[in-house]
């Protein structure tokens, strides 16, 4: 975890929905898929707080420097401001933050489920799995074809997993919500496969909840990357808590520290 000064290398819109941001940082960072950064740097005190963005990629750059990449969607003032920034301008980053996906060991059957911009956490997981040639399938859901990530961003390399696209308006892939596809596939899975299954998911809370219930019903394991409003991102403000089951009781856990990835069975949905 470090707080670094970054410089924008690129910040381009893709299909009016997603922006891809690459930032040069002083040295390379390692991260677990699902981990995130707190990003700020626009001038002035309004907006005041940094914004959490999943780390989409991170790597080495010439001369011992590093880069970090993000994918974001403009939803409000902070992301709008970010989208107006240009290469050469400065950003501050705290990264890597939180607990990412537990990608466990091989021999497991991985399903990666991303809804909306949730693919930004799911793709790095896919890349890691593909890198070690672990079997996975990926389910991506969005409202329309335009809200799907550009094809060239899909990770995989020499061993891409199978990718299922779903759009709510049927403009690409399966006509319907990604939850339907996942639930249907779950229902058809053998008990042996269910016991090998590990679902990694990121997306709107309603989507996560629906899949979590379906997974729980079949006894499948699932990790869900949650979101919440954050002030600090590194565990000191206690602002980002969600309710988790703690034995019989409920405990408030920080999305930025104990999460953002939680065991879906522990979440009080």
């Amino acid at each position: 975890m470090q707080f670094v000064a970054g410089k924008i290398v690129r910040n381009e819109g893709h299909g009016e929905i997603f922006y891809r941001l690459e930032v040069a940082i002083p040295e390379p960072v390692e991260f677990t898929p699902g981990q995130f950064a707190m990003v700020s740097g626009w001038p002035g005190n309004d907006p005041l707080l940094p914004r959490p963005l999943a780390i989409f990629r991170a790597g080495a750059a010439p001369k011992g420097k590093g880069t970090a990449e993000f994918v974001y969607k403009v939803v409000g003032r902070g992301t709008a401001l970010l989208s107006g920034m240009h290469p050469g301008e400065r950003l501050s980053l705290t990264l890597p933050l939180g607990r990412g996906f537990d990608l466990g060991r091989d021999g497991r059957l991985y399903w990666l489920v991303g809804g909306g911009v949730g693919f930004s956490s799911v793709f790095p997981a896919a890349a890691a799995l593909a890198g070690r040639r672990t079997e996975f399938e990926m389910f991506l859901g969005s409202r329309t074809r335009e809200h799907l990530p550009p094809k060239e961003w899909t990770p995989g390399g020499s061993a891409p997993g199978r990718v299922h696209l779903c759009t709510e308006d049927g403009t690409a892939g399966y006509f319907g919500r990604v939850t339907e596809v996942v639930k249907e596939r779950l229902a058809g899975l053998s008990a042996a496969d269910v016991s090998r299954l590990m679902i990694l998911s990121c997306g709107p809370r309603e989507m996560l909840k629906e899949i979590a219930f379906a997974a729980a019903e079949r006894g499948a394991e699932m990790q869900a990357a949650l979101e919440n409003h954050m002030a600090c991102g590194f565990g000191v403000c206690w602002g980002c808590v969600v309710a988790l089951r703690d034995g019989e009781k409920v405990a408030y856990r920080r999305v930025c520290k104990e999460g953002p990835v939680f065991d879906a069975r522990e979440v009080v949905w």
Partner: protein
Amino acid sequence: MVKPDLSVSLGSLRLKNPVMSASGTFGYGLEFAPFYDISRLGAVVVKGLSLAPTPGNPPGRIVETASGMLNAIGLQNIGVERFMADVAPQLEGAGAVFAANIYGRTAEEYEAVAERLSGLSSLAAIEVNASCPNVKEGGMAFGAAPEGIQRLTERVRKATDKPVWVKLSPNVSDIASVAAAAEASGADAVSLINTIVGMAVDHRTRRPKLSNTTGGLSGPAIKPVALRMVWEVCRRVKIPVIGIGGIQTAADALEFLLVGAAAVQVGTANFRNPRACVEILEGIEAFLREERLSGIAEYRGGLLL
């Protein structure tokens, strides 16, 4: 040139510099160790401690506002016992000077926490949160009027030999009178301001944005109000005043020192910039050098009217 003297006195307590963290914005201090050596700070003030661990408020705890934020954390904390057993030794190990911020549901609870903490030889001071707006029992019952503050301060004063700082609420008509009551009741210092009570609603869903409906406003938005209150209190009391509210830069911190604060605490700024406290510290030193001042003492309280 000789190094300017950054040290400051808070009554009998001498701090190596005037920059502290504000309670609730710095966790238990150790979380900042990855960013810098926390022993460099004048003092680390940890998250508000209560007798028993406290779960805090349900989610919907923070909202961003124009140049500020509302929080309704509800004083979630690990409780005084775990603090003493697990955290304090680590703070000692890190070489940090640290103070404990405390609160209770009743005067007895405040007393009990203060008494318990007194056994901690490494503890620099006890800051009494008489002003948390986010829990019914967060001290506002005491903090809203001079009489309440007097009662609370007297009890905590008797319960401990540690320096006692009383943290004041800005949600009052006359903060200087409340400060004077703390002084008269034996406080070693007053710290101000805590957050200003605010509210945010969503005009579409028609619901409050915080589970607690209202929350405490902090950040640059409140700096002008904090500065005015610190100035008012400095003119009224003789005990040291710790200035808090919207401090983000060395210039901000210097403003509080200029109107008379003996030290400052940095809160919300830690969220956007985890290195805020040390950067402010370095900025103050650079300023003193630039102005060829021998130290804080030569600058403090020097407002020209």
